[in-house]
């Protein structure tokens, strides 16, 4: 590798100060008195979910309108494990992620040749089918009342999940951090570069000999596994699952968050989740009946003026202030 090529990869592999500040801010938030820990935990779960969608949408350009299916599969897998005696949280999390990931690989195989509207419709259709099934199988899932009796052992045998959400916060933050590190390594690996290449110009990647279809299926599986882990975290921290985890609304919300934050950035999902959940909370408190209107207006506003998302817009601003060519 020539020095020139090195310099292309270097700035992206090194941790920059914004990333370090981002994670320190989450850790510091814990110590601020009066912090709403359950809300922050909730945001982290959404952020992780949005990050997993970013893997296929931002880095590979495959839009899914049914990503809540994998979130829900992970959530239910964790719920059933805990309900039927497998109370150790970390292995439960892993198993939930694997279950969702395998389903994702299968789905990836089904949708691999589709584009545009057909892709959106098939992912949406699969999502709706699963939601419908979960809501109707009341003797298994408990229907709208949800799955009761989810109890977990302490994390690592040391930290019990408490009702104030102290353990839950650190648990989710650690898992989110670890998964971000993994995803970060993944998108900067040759595999990640091949994904981005296929996003920009699939035909060219194909003529270069890249197995773009296999890569896309694998990326779909990994993204589904991430979504499943996010779902499992929600179950474990709230000790409850309802069919709502599979709802189409969730698929639409996570897409919105990702677009607000910015595609193809990994952090875009977290920033988008932070903005979306906080805004949602504020607006719903100010205007409990018609808050939908403001969410809609926000969406219109974002696609009109901030199509690139918060992070990409900020990036351009910073670059132009430094006088660099964008």
């Amino acid at each position, binding site marked *: 590798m020539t020095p020139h090529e090195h310099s292309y990869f270097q700035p992206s592999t090194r941790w920059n100060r914004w990333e370090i500040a981002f994670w320190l801010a989450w850790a510091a938030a814990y110590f601020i008195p009066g912090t709403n820990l359950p809300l922050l935990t909730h945001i982290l779960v959404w952020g992780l979910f949005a990050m997993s969608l970013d893997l296929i*949408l931002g880095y590979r350009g495959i*839009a899914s309108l049914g990503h809540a299916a994998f979130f829900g599969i992970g959530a239910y897998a964790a719920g059933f494990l805990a309900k039927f005696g497998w109370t150790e949280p970390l292995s439960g999390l892993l198993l939930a992620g694997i279950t969702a990931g395998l389903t994702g690989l299968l789905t990836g195989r*089904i949708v691999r*040749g*589709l*584009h*545009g*509207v*057909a892709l*959106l*419709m*098939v992912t*949406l*259709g*699969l999502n*709706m*089918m699963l939601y*419908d*099934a979960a809501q*109707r199988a009341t003797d298994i899932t408990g229907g709208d009342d949800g799955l009761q009796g989810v109890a977990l052992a302490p994390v690592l045998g040391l930290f019990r999940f408490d009702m104030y959400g102290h353990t839950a916060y650190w648990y989710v933050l650690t898992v989110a951090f670890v998964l971000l590190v993994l995803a970060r390594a993944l998108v900067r690996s040759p595999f990640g570069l091949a994904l981005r290449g296929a996003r920009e110009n699939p035909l060219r990647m194909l003529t270069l000999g890249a197995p773009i279809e296999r890569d896309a299926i694998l990326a779909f599986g990994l993204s589904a596994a991430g979504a499943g882990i996010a779902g499992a975290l929600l179950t474990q921290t709230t000790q409850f699952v309802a069919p709502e985890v599979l709802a*189409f609304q969730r698929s*639409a919300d996570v*897409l*919105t968050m990702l*677009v607000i934050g910015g595609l193809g950035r990994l952090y875009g999902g977290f920033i988008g989740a932070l903005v979306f959940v906080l805004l949602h909370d504020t607006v719903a408190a100010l205007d409990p*009946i*018609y*808050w*939908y*209107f*403001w*969410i*809609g*207006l*926000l*969406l*219109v506003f*974002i*696609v*009109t003026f901030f*199509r690139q998302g918060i992070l990409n817009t900020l990036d351009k601003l910073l670059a132009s202030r430094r006088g660099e060519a964008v």
Partner: protein
Amino acid sequence: MAVIATMLFNGLAYGVLLFSMAVGLALTMGMMRFVNLAQVSLAMTGGYLVVVAMPHFGLPYLATLPLCFVLVALLTMLLERWVFRHFYGADDLTQVLLTIGLLFMSVAGAAYLFGPSFRPMQVPDWLSGQVPLLGLMLDRSRLFLVGAGATLALALFLGLERTRFGAMVRACVDNPRAAGACGLNTSMVFALTFAVGGGLAGLGGGLAVTQLVIDPNFPLRYLVYVLIVVSLGGTGTVIGTLLASVLIGIVDVAGKYYMPQAGSSLLYLITVVIMLWRPNGLLQRKGMP
């Protein structure tokens, strides 16, 4: 036998409603590749026009239907000129998010203007009750729907096939750039097609008042159905949309009758299977109406 025939008929009536709500979307998606999810909001607007105009202005039901078409078409034209036009070049995802935002706004707006609950409609005498036909007892309101739907489909088909404007629309579906290069005012054709499609959705909403519940959640409830119809029928084709609407209408009615425990899953399953078999829809033939 009579049960099956009645069910097919009810499915057909439901399919007609879906057709009128979806056909505008199919045309605009075929022409300017614009995914307008707010199409269902336009249908809701038509429905509210009927349930509000009838008691307030004392209009008969039949007189409100043209009103639905004209007013909603005008509204759509304004939306197209002010908003949609600027997003023709954007990617699918941007358009989906933009129009789903508009859809959310319409849901909250309808709740604000008309209240959150269901607005019932005074069904006129000539539309209520049943009438014997070919040995079956059929609902008058559904019979009216099927008749209106047949007229609508025929008018649309002939309008696209036989009129000058129809030829312009077909040219723009086929290749907007080449049509523009031939001196066609494509921007005007886009706007008019949008307006006609929106007007038809409004008319569909007006027709729907006897069958479906008109409340602020109407767009959220029927969005999926309309999307399924459009993707199954294929974009830019009137006949494909009609075929898909009737298919979905019948599957939905039959599924609820024979397999109530499966719910809508049957519908989604058929959608997924058809989309995998024919990703571009049942009848994807560009240039044909």
